């Protein structure tokens, strides 16, 4: 208990004094996870919408793969990314091993299936007649998809936040592909592991609080957006 209280006191001091190591890790986390989530949104929402609205050959297989992808163990993803980015790997010439780019790739692979899968579910949850109505008003297939994506925006926002939540709190893949380099690839989760290993509980707590605050803030915004226009 004493250890916990000491850790909390130290954490508050580090946050209050804007400890550079803590801020650096927080900033790196936001950049890496934010970029990975953004990329998964750009690629994942159109694919999710197509899977949710479309009827085409192989759709079931893609949906199964997507659902499987939602449960991918981060260390397995990290392992495959390392293999591809290793000097002798298929993309070794990029020299991205132990870089933020490698972490973004790994986190994108983790977030993408979540965004795709939950977007597909969001689109399937819409009233099917809504699509007929929009089509009947003269919408092209692209217009119809855009209008329906906007209609499902709150559920899609949940998909985005789930994707972000999956990567901001992930450690295995980031540690493997980013190598936890101070001031560069050290993010909140990898820093917490390192600080705990060193017995620096105050720093670990400070990092953990910031991580929790980030997750809370993101979910708070989502919840606010979801609730603000709902009538009783």
């Amino acid at each position, binding site marked *: 208990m004493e250890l916990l209280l000491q850790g909390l006191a130290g954490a508050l001091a580090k946050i209050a004094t804007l400890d550079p190591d803590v801020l650096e890790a927080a900033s790196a986390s936001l950049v890496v996870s934010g970029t990975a989530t953004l990329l998964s949104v750009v690629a994942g929402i159109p694919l999710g919408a197509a899977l949710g609205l479309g009827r085409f050959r192989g759709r079931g297989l893609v949906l199964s793969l997507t659902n499987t992808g939602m449960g991918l163990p981060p260390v397995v993803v990290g392992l495959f990314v390392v293999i591809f980015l290793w000097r002798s790997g298929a993309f070794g010439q990029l020299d991205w091993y132990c870089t933020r780019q490698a972490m973004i790739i790994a986190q994108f692979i983790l977030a993408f299936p979540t965004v795709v899968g939950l977007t597909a579910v969001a689109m399937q949850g819409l009233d099917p007649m809504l699509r007929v*109505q929009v089509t*009947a008003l003269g919408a092209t297939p692209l217009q119809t998809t855009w209008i329906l994506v906007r209609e499902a925006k709150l559920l899609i926002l949940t998909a985005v936040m789930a994707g972000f939540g999956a990567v901001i709190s992930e450690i295995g893949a980031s540690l493997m592909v980013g190598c936890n380099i101070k001031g560069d690839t050290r993010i909140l989760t990898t820093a917490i592991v390192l600080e705990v290993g060193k017995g620096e509980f105050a720093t670990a707590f400070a990092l953990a609080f910031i991580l929790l605050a980030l997750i809370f803030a993101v979910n708070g915004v989502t919840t606010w957006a979801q609730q603000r226009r709902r009538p009783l």
Partner: protein
Amino acid sequence: MTPVLEASGIEVERGGRVVASAERVALDEGETLALLGPNGAGKTSLVLALATLIPARGEIRHRGAVVADLVAFRRRTAVVFQRPLLLDRSVIDNAALGLEIRGAPTRDRRARAAAALERFGVAHLADRPAVALSGGEAQRVSLARAFAVDPEVLFLDEPFGALDAPTRAAVIADLARALREARVATVLVTHDRDEALTLADRVAVMIGGRVRQVGGTEAVFGTPVDAEIAEFVGVENVLPSRVESVTEERTVLRVGQRLVEAAAMPPEGEDAPLVLIAPDAVVIAQAAAFGSSARNSFAGRVGAVEPIGRQVRLVVDCGFRLVAHVTRQSAREMRFAPGDEVVASFKATSVHLIRRHRA
């Protein structure tokens, strides 16, 4: 005159079975055609096919030209469904959706949407979120959305089906006025005879997936071509008969134990036609107070007295089973009860004769 919409050889197939078909459906400028039929008759499938929203065999022409570009065709039409199907936006944004899709400038879009909302009495709700509307308000917005695009053809798929009776009556009245003002060619799907009578110029009766009779509203309701259509349009008295004599003025037929006179001629070559008599055309009087000039007057006994809406349905055994509809007030004043001795009468001109078997 070239019809605004003309469809021929339409067949909608589902699960290897034709669920809706029509040899020819044509719609003139400003005309309202009611697709009338019981549940499951294929009305919705046919109207969705005409609106090019589901695949169908056959040919659809718009102002004489074969419809090839479906999106372009749909941008000249509008569809209103049974449910309002509004988006999670403001009322005015919903009313403007068709205009937004068609690329109308924002200012023009809002002005036209506002005018359409005004037409259906919901302009005061323009800035409200659509999800906060009542069922009646939402359906008015749905109608406004359709009228906002100024369609050349309007498809209405049972648009009052989900509304309570008073709201339904009010929305029908507003729609009737809007149709008169806009003079838009309209296909109205309904299973309600009163809706068809109120809104339609012509009626196409669909039964079992096929359009079985098309004609003016009065003609279809007054002279259905077969027994099934007769029953559906409310002619409950479909009686087998045998022709006894035919003159230039009248036909005498044996119905049960009675002789019935009809002003109509029997169908050519038919000596055992079906006799159709609308229940509204039958007058029932207490036997003691009877006095009628009708040629067909038969003493009988009331078998059943059943209230149906604003009327009372009387089943009278007068040598054959005859159904009559009387107003509730008449039924109350005459104190009809099962077992009463009554006289049932109807005019010879109210008797319609059709073939026993459909051609």
